[in-house]
């Protein structure tokens, strides 16, 4: 099994992250994982976990379904044992209840303009690839999911990785394991879409580009720094400065880089009133394509990335979240050392080349 243990600086708390092969990428029946999450939580094993004071979440992502467990250290072994039983024994007779609950959460996700705009952009960009299905806000046909679909998902259930943050390495998971398998993308889509929702005061603008996945180490390292400069470094980023600080157009304006296993995605977002949508899109595209980059701006972004790595690990869950990518994607154990060394060596022209290589974006507005 792909696993990683990190000794926790805190004595009485343990965190376990388990990546399961039930992300959008691996689902044989789209939406089956959305239904399994409430179904798992309905089991007596899950309720027993709750009674022990264990906190756990199950969140479907594009590449895997993340099970995150936090417990007092003295009960972590028992907690993981109960969790394993819960995962293997969903109360399948309650499928209808689970479908109803999952459908409500999908509907609520689709009410949120920011979430829905990302979902629509993924559909345009990834077309018939599984990444086109936003984990929570795709138009899943959950009512059509059958008991057989659920049984098949459980029969095929595999652990992609296990990350443990605890005082001692005492946690094992008794489930079959597998490696993450990439599904290549044949061709990216492009275009624009405007979704009008009644009752919304604000519109979300989402601009999405395909880029390097996480296993392209150097490419993803460059994108990480480029994202910091464009919109991932809070108030000091270019998008924030141009859209929010200088013009007061929006409360939020930022970018994200998702280094996934089968591709990467660069996303720029802002929330504005409808009458400012066109100007905002023009402004955002101008900011993203701006090819000037000084040594100072680059140096600041690099310092930011290195410092942030330390800050992200202030808590047990932060440690687990930061390091779990290593076993999940089979990255080298010295992944973060390589990252730091590489980004320290970057020159402005490296990032300008990266900027020029960004493909055509998709542009979605929702509100």
């Amino acid at each position, binding site marked *: 099994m792909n696993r990683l243990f990190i000794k926790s600086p805190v004595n009485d708390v343990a965190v376990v992250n388990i990546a399961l092969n039930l992300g959008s990428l691996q689902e044989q029946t789209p939406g089956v994982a959305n239904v399994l999450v409430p179904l798992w939580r309905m089991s007596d094993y899950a309720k027993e976990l709750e009674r022990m004071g264990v906190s756990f979440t199950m969140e479907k992502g594009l590449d895997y379904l993340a099970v995150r467990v936090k417990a007092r250290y003295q009960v972590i072994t028992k907690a993981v044992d109960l969790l394993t039983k819960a995962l293997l024994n969903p109360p399948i007779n309650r499928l209808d209840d689970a479908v109803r609950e999952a459908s409500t959460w999908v509907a609520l996700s689709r009410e949120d303009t920011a979430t829905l705009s990302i979902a629509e952009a993924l559909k345009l960009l990834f077309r018939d690839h599984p990444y086109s299905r936003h984990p929570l806000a795709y138009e899943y046909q959950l009512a059509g999911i059958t008991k057989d679909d659920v049984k098949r998902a459980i029969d095929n259930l595999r652990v992609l990785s296990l990350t443990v943050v605890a005082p001692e390495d005492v946690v094992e998971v008794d489930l079959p394991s597998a490696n993450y398998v990439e599904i290549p993308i044949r061709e990216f889509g492009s275009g624009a879409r405007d979704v009008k929702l009644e*009752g919304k005061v604000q519109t979300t603008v989402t601009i999405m580009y395909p880029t390097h996945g996480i296993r392209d180490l150097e490419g993803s390292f460059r994108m990480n720094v480029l994202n910091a400069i464009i919109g991932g470094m809070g108030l000091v980023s270019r998008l924030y400065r141009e859209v929010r600080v200088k013009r007061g157009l929006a409360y939020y304006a930022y970018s994200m880089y998702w280094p996934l296993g089968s591709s990467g995605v660069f996303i720029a977002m802002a929330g504005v009133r409808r009458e400012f949508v066109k100007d905002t899109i023009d402004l955002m595209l101008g900011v993203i394509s701006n090819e000037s980059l000084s040594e100072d701006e680059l140096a600041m972004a690099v310092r930011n990335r290195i410092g942030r790595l330390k800050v992200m690990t*202030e808590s047990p869950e932060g440690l687990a979240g930061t390091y779990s990518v290593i076993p999940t994607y089979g990255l080298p154990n010295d992944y973060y050392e390589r990252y730091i060394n590489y980004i320290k060596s970057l020159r402005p022209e490296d990032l300008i080349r990266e900027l020029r290589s960004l493909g055509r974006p998709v542009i979605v507005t929702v509100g």
Partner: protein
Amino acid sequence: MIRVFLDNGLVVIAHQMPVDVSAIYMFYNVGAKNEYPGIYGGSHLVEHMLFRRIEGLGKSVDELVEGVGGYFNGFTNYDYTAYVEVLPLEFTELGLEIESRRMVGAVFDPEEFELERKIVLSEFDMDENDADFRLMYRASMIAWDTHPYRYAVIGLRRDLSRVSRDELFRYYRRYYNARNAVLVVAGGLPESKVVEMARKYFGKLEGDGETGSVEAWDENVPGRVRVEMKAPPNESPRLLYAIKVPGVHDIEGFRKVVLFDFVVSGDRAFTYGLTAREPMAVPRSSRLYRLVEEGLGNAVYSYYEPTYMNNLYYVIVYGVKDPDKAAARIEELIMERPSDEELRFARERILARLSFSMDAPSKLAQLYGLSQLFTGDPSAMARAIEESTKLGGDDYVEFVNKSISPPIMIIYR
């Protein structure tokens, strides 16, 4: 943990943990509770201005903090305004320098003020996009008339559009002073070193200005209130059910609210980590989840945060079929005496959550700071949370009979 009072009145709390990070929190005892007609939402706008130009800082706060990879933020609440930096340990001093300059040196440039006004109004738009926010805001307007909690923290659009730069600058001068502030530093530095740094950066600042302390007061909910709001076709129908519960000014009341919350909702984070998400979900073995199990709704959620004065405890049922039946069932669930098993369950979860709320610098600093502001004792809230586990079924029954208000129900369909 140690607590020191500087001569100018600043409270300094320091706690060492085995990490390479420092969380620097500066709390000011000013928030929605200090606002008055004409400036509702003004505390929050002031907070925004305190990320703009500050005299004595060579660069902007964001450049300084992001330049070393730190995390920073500001939060305005009903009772307080807080500023935080989470920094690599070697840059701790930077956080103290920023906070000392912020206390006295904000410029409130008129052009920047107008930009921030637009940004806060855009934040209002973002909030209004969310149906749950609109329902809670409406409930708040029913729960209070002249009380400053009435317009929540975001305030009134009309006031935010009109309030002048000069009025909010005076507000800033009035409440941002050492005597009205609590500095908490949790992380890898020895406590004595933190105190030494605090003296260096804050010791020479004047303690003049006002404190934002107020006497706790409340307005009664006149009786059961039922309101209907029309939902657009793309939004799920829902029921918001709100009751008023005691604030932390009544520490005994708060202790009972904690037990009540864990019996009814089953889980609640006491503090929030700023740099990573804590696993959180409504437990299926909680009372509220019975609403879903019994088919009265498709999903359920509750929201509560401790405030100084009494505030609303919200339950939202999504995909609700018969809202009146669901409301009646919520009432039964609230009033029911907890079984021994339920009490055991609640106690386990309270103690676990307390541990989880103290395992990172940014969480622990938050808990100490809030506790100091609300009670004058940095440990009082943690103690009250722990002691809530000693309460029994009789205490629960007495609490729900005597200490919660009649409900406000808002039906959205």
